């Protein structure tokens, strides 16, 4: 089945089986393996990407349901030269250990701070509750997201 998706600003046209999840389509068809798949049934949050700006579990969405949608993956949030302020904050706070959950968490955090750059710790923890991390104990992740807020506020104030 033909599916046309915009991924990270580029138009793709895939031929997929209806049963192909968006996660598998991203990894195996678009060869964008930054999106990680762990549980494959919506429990862990590792595969979170943004579809039309909103965080979704890409294992709980069919690729054919993303037809005509705009998808943002971890590969799309930074350019090759530099890390984003959010990623820098993760590095500074040691918010990634094994790194398997990090792409999903970064996508959720990016969506959260883009729409709510004033999010407080409770709100950050609420959004993070949709992600499993088995290494960090979450404290450095919460810290990293909170510390990235000024960069998003600045971005927002610079919008035309």
């Amino acid at each position, binding site marked *: 089945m033909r599916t046309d998706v915009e991924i990270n600003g580029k138009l793709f046209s895939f031929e997929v*089986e*209806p*049963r192909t999840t968006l996660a598998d389509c991203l990894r195996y068809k678009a060869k964008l393996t930054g999106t990680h798949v762990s549980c494959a049934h919506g429990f862990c949050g590792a595969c979170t990407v943004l579809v039309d700006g*909103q965080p*979704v*579990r890409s*294992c709980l969405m*069919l690729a054919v349901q993303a037809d005509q949608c705009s998808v943002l993956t971890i590969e799309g949030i930074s350019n090759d030269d530099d890390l984003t302020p959010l990623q820098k904050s993760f590095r500074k706070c040691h918010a990634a250990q094994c790194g398997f959950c990090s792409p999903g968490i970064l996508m959720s955090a990016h969506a959260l701070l883009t729409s709510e750059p004033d999010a407080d710790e409770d709100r950050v923890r609420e959004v993070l*509750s*949709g992600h499993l991390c088995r290494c960090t104990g979450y404290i450095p992740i919460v810290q990293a997201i909170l510390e990235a807020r000024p960069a998003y506020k600045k971005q927002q104030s610079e919008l035309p």
Partner: protein
Amino acid sequence: MKLPKFDYACPATIEEAVALLARADGTARPISGGQSLMPMLAFRLVQPSLLVDLRHVPGLAAITIGNDGVHLGAKVRWCDIETSAALQAAQPILTAAVRHIAHHQIRTRGTIGGSIAHADPAAEMPCVAVLCDAEIEIVGSAGKRKIPATSFFKGPLMTALQPDELITGIRFPAWPAQRRWAFEEFARRRGDFALAGIAMFFDMRDDKASNVHIAAFGIGDTPLRLANAEAALNNRPLTEAVIKACCRAGHQEVDPPDDIHGSSAYRRGLVDYLLGQSLRRLAGHSAKAGANAH
């Protein structure tokens, strides 16, 4: 696990969607957000021949608030309910219940119609629908019909829906502004299915609770109204003795199953505890106290 093989159709009208379901003779499933159906497919608990995607079917995603209550289209997503200030004012228990449903990343796709049709016994919204005497609006090959939520849920993941029928919307009756209410559940982690939960409302008349509605979920095959607990509270003042009697009645009338997540006795205890917590808070405060329910 990878999903089983199925065909996929994306009809542009509700008539076409119903015709596709009817033609598949019970082997097709409708899909919208897919937040319950996709895990079922991943576990291969269902293996449909065809998925009928409702994403291009128009007119099912509106939140309508009127004097006669609230109407939610089947495709209204949890995040739509969560972020509607008008809905929070008109029917605050909906907003409170949605905050317990799964996680932010699932509430962006999961829909109210999907949750009602899925009929998980531990799900929040079927319980709120039963509590509020909501009406489920359905369309199928034989035309439209409405079923009261109280007779819609038949068992775990079983409903009154026929294979060629779709939910189009849910109607909640009017909700007086002064109504006292609570929605409480217990889950070991945020977003997990509740081990038990309760929802209730009543209207104060002459310092007595009247029109008492109490329902529980996660404690049986379907969400249930707790008639004995309601009777213990109805037309009585919110004294400690009445609250205790209400909790005791609720404790005795539920018959939860044992499973690996909790024993029957534990879940019974939770119903007792959650009723007590809610009633003591509602006894001490104004109607607004309900807004702090967790």
